[in-house]
């Protein structure tokens, strides 16, 4: 069980032996940073895991689930806004649970999940199998079975390093594609073993055809392609996963790099398996749409026991469930004419005025809602003030925002912290409004943007008291041209309207909080199917069986190119070794050539050929004025490096390959040698590089070849003759 191929820290792996595994407490790594910026601008001021999901900061769902699932030790990895997360956890009761230890790990230079896992590896806190998830995941699944499957597999096969939790998505394809606002996910799974064979989460719509490697069907007789599953982003990992991240320092994204990297790498043979959950819940808040969907799932109690009316963590707000899925905190001041419709939640100490209606919405603590306000499908966080006659459709309104009388928020609006919307202002659909200006520096690398944003722009900006700022000519710190908010959120407003993020307006509707307009849905549905046409156009004339396949030729030439590349690399390696260190060790070259051989997937014979080619090049590079000096050079090279070459000459076949290679060299790259062919062959024989068997069988093989191919055989005729005679004499003597 302790056998490892990954290399790197051996101490961790020692813990994997079967007996140890039983003793190691179940650990979990909770990434309290999504390493993405889909929740901007809100996440500029507060980390995503602390955003309230149905009035409870998200991280509580994750921690409560981990505790209920029997995890004993959790490492919360904090990166962006680390201090806020740590402060929150310290104030909460999570750090003082009896049998559930929560430890925070703070780091500021991580910009991706990969960095985080490398950091965790360096701290060597993980001793056995662990659960890897991010802090924005909501689940109520039972881990027992998945863990057991994972451990059983590990006992049989140490290479099964990870079990990924997946879930059947809704049967309707349209809902499936739009429910969580995520990209389409394609997976190939072995139906017998549940091994994951293919994973594609960012599908390229321009290609109507998905190409699977044919080798997938070599080991198993059937594979199952899935377009109907969702990834829950909960992984059961073995400690190797951490060392794999350490070894592959370019792995950043858990799925895009790590999972794909493991799937395409057939040298190490690490395997990923899947566990499908049937009736339990697991989903990740990835974007505003999934925020909306998951909030509704929580209100509709799919995530039981993690629902608003159950105190599933320490200082959980008290909410009562009333009829028809209406949750209300005990101390609400509410007018008689207020209408709160089912599937809504109203937090503590909130005041709601006359004739206001609340539909499918979540309202936080201490909000003040005026008269005749209409709130539909919104998420109003804490201490928000909404004056009379406002109309809010499908919006997120963060803490401390202030919406003045008569303002209208159109569908999909995000109001960040303490934004002020002026009177009678109509905030256009899908606007994102924040007090902070939009960072102008746009980094092309998506992974890096979050870090840039959080470090570059006033993290933890001192919370200026904005409640009082409602005078007409209020001045803001940044009142230059960049501050374009005044006209947009009203003359009395405060905030910048951000231009749409990198997804572009096209994608805005897909990940927004607002329901998708019907026409968009239709378009989307059409587009999903449209690529059939592309496909048919490209492929409308199927190749008939009679036609010759053009591909087959190009494939051959590809292979040739590969061998050529390989040769070049071997030559470079060889010459570098010769140049840099005069007495260089042949073992080092063997090591390098071997790794090249693996990466190009070639045989030993080709290695021998390539090495011989390099040796010829070396001889050519050494100064020579005539053929005899060249021969002398070659002789020296052979003497010096024959050990290296012999390493690859396991049988006569490889030796013949060397001779054939030499022929090729003489005809193509180094014609100087063509006259010396038989003499060099003689040298090779004298130095025991090539045996007489190889030479004789080479000569016989060439016997039937074209005349032009036989120049060198003819040239070597006397030598071969001599060899044959010598052999006969030998046998005579016997």
């Amino acid at each position, binding site marked *: 069980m302790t056998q490892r191929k990954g290399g790197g820290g051996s101490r961790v792996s020692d813990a994997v032996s079967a007996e140890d595994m039983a003793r190691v407490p179940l650990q979990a790594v909770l990434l309290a940073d999504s390493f993405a910026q889909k929740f901007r601008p809100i996440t500029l001021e507060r980390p995503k895991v602390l955003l309230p999901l149905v009035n409870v900061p998200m991280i509580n769902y994750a921690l409560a689930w981990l505790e209920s699932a029997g995890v004993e030790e959790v490492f919360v990895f904090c990166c962006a806004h680390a201090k806020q997360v740590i402060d929150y956890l310290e104030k909460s009761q999570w750090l003082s649970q009896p049998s559930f230890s929560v430890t925070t790990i703070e780091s500021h230079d991580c910009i991706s999940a990969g960095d985080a896992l490398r950091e965790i590896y360096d701290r060597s806190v993980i001793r056995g199998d662990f659960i890897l998830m991010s802090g924005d995941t909501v689940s109520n699944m039972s881990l027992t079975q998945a863990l057991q499957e994972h451990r059983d597999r590990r006992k049989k096969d140490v290479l099964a390093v990870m079990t990924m939790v997946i879930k059947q998505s809704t*049967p*309707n*394809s*349209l*809902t*499936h594609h739009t429910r969580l606002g995520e990209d*389409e996910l*394609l997976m*190939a799974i072995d*139906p017998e073993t549940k091994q994951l064979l293919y994973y594609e989460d960012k*599908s390229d719509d321009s*290609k*109507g*055809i*998905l*190409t*699977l*490697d*044919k080798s*997938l*069907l070599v080991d198993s*007789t*059937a*594979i*199952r*392609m*899935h*377009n*109907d599953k969702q990834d829950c982003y909960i992984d059961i990992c073995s400690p190797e996963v951490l060392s794999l991240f350490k070894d592959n320092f370019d792995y950043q994204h858990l799925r895009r790099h790590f999972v794909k990297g493991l799937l395409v790498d057939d040298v190490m043979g690490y395997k990923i398996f899947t566990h499908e959950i049937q009736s339990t819940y697991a989903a990740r808040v990835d974007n505003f749409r999934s925020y909306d969907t998951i909030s509704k799932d929580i209100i509709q109690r799919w995530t039981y026991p993690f629902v608003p009316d159950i105190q599933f963590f320490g200082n959980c707000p008290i909410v009562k469930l009333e009829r028809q899925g209406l949750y209300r905190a005990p101390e609400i001041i509410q007018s008689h004419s207020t209408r709160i419709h089912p599937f809504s939640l109203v937090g503590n100490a909130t005041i709601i005025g006359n004739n206001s209606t609340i539909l499918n919405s979540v309202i936080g603590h201490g909000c003040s809602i005026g008269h005749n306000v209409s709130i539909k499908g919104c998420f109003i966080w804490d201490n928000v003030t909404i004056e009379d006659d406002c109309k809010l459709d499908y919006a997120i309104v963060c803490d401390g925002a202030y919406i003045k009388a008569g303002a209208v928020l159109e569908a999909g609006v995000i109001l960040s912290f303490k934004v002020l919307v002026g009177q009678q202002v109509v905030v256009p659909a899908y606007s994102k409004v924040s007090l902070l200006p939009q960072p102008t520096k746009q980094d092309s690398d998506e992974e890096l943007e979050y870090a840039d944003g959080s470090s570059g722009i006033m993290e933890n900006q001192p919370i200026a008291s904005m409640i009082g700022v409602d005078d007409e000519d209020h001045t803001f710190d940044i009142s230059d041209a960049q501050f374009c908010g005044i006209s947009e959120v009203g003359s009395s407003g405060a905030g910048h309207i951000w231009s749409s993020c990198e997804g572009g307006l096209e994608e805005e509707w897909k990940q927004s909080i607002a329901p998708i307009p*019907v*026409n968009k*849905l*239709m*378009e989307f*549905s*059409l587009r*999903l*199917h*449209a*690529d*059939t*046409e592309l*496909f*048919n156009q490209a*492929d409308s*004339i*199927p190749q*008939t*069986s*009679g036609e010759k*396949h053009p*591909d*087959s030729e190009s494939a051959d030439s590809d292979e040739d190119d590969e061998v050529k590349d390989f040769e070049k690399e071997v030559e470079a390696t060889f010459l570098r070794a010769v140049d840099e260190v005069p007495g260089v060790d042949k073992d080092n070259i063997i090591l390098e050539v071997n790794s090249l051989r693996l990466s190009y997937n070639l045989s030993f014979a080709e290695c021998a050929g390539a090495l011989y080619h390099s040796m010829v090049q070396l001889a050519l590079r050494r100064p020579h004025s005539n053929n005899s000096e060249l021969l002398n050079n070659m002789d020296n090279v052979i003497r010096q490096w024959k050990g290296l070459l012999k390493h690859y000459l396991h049988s006569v076949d490889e030796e013949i390959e060397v001779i054939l290679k030499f022929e090729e060299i003489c005809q193509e790259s180094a014609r100087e040698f063509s006259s010396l062919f038989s003499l060099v062959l003689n040298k090779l024989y004298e130095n025991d590089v090539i045996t007489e068997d190889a030479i004789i069988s080479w000569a016989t093989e060439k016997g039937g070849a074209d005349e032009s191919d036989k120049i060198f055989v003819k040239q070597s005729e006397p030598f071969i003759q001599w060899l044959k005679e010598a052999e006969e004499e030998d046998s005579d003597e016997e």
Partner: protein
Amino acid sequence: MDFQVVVLAGGASKELSPLVSNEVPKALLPVANRPVLSYVLDLLESSNLKDLIIVVEGSDAALRVGGWISSAYHDRLRVQVAQVPEDVGTAGALRLVANRLTASDILVVSGDLISDVPPGAVAAIHRRHDAVVTSLLCTSPISGPSETGSSGGKDKMKKQGRYNIIGLDPTRQFLLLAAAGTDVEKDIRVQRSILRAVGQMEIRADLMDAHLYAFKRNVLQEVLDKKDTFQSIRQDVLPYLVKSQLRSEISANGAPLSKDGLNENMASQNGQAWLSQQRIGAPSCFHEAYASVPNGSTAEPGRIHKCCAYIASKDKYCARLNSIQAYCDINRDVIGEASHLSGYSFSAQNNIILPSAQLGSKTTVGPQCMLDEGSHLGDKCSVKRSVIGRHCRIGSNVKIVNSIVMNHVTIEDGCLVQGSIICSNVYLQERVVLKDCQVGAGFVVTSGSEYKAESLSKKEKSPSH
């Protein structure tokens, strides 16, 4: 049943040389001493499919097949024999007989199929789903190449490394992917649109296309007509139909489903109604879900057709006689494991020795053997797992193991025949040893010679060592 059957009986197939010739076309090659074609015809008859067109390549072959049919089946089946030129391919052959097709559905079956899967079941599935094509798929034959022991020929098995690559929906009724010909050796190419429509696709490599298809007649005729480059049913026509199933180009009134009805529905629907329809839940069949794509301005509403698969259960026998190795295997299976196919009744010793056959003293015929009428075995012979045809004369001390001996063969004393196929009218002189050989009709093997893994036939001079 309104089904017309086209049996593609082939001609003098080159792969089976030297077993087949102009005198013995592939269709008449004996399997347990019955022409291979009779197995298919009996199978069709058992499903009450009696309206047949038998397509034979080459005029000589057509004459012989026609002659045999009229003598053997004249009162049982309505058969037309059509003659087509050689090397037109399966689709080409169908194209040439397309004008004779009248029934609404056509069953196309290869004449070299040995199976007990009822074609009626395939036809029923085809009708039930109103499919344009239904293909019979079998799990790999009972007898794998590994257990045969005899290699039979030089390069036969290498080509059969993998079976077809087939994609199925979760209910295993619909065909979603059919990799054809050389594509089988390449990477698997899956159409995203089909995968999206279905949600889940199972890709299998262990299924064999049995070359039994049910087609809608007008679709078949249209495809053959429009795509005049198509040569093979398996490699061109079937993949084409599978590929285009969600964007059917078939215009004939064969376009399935109540397409017109759907269109009218769509036209009258506004967006909301469409949306609520989408939310009702998953339709019973993904095709219908797909067809209800909104009636947008850019694309025509989905015109689709269905491609179905019938997967034979594992206990059914299914094999195609398309190589010499397959010929050996099938013969052995028909008198062995799949003996119900042969139509003979077996003796207590699990073999068949017709009464008119004569055995010398101390001659043994083991189980899973067949000895046909009028054959005569000398003394001290031993026959194991072999088929011996009519009127053979076999001397004494002859050993025949794992072999097929056709009719009117003379084997002299002391011969050893192992893993070989001896065609009709061959003469083996004394003490000939044959291992894994094929001996063409009328060949004479001189006394005392030994051959191993060779193909002997009249045309060549005696093969040199």
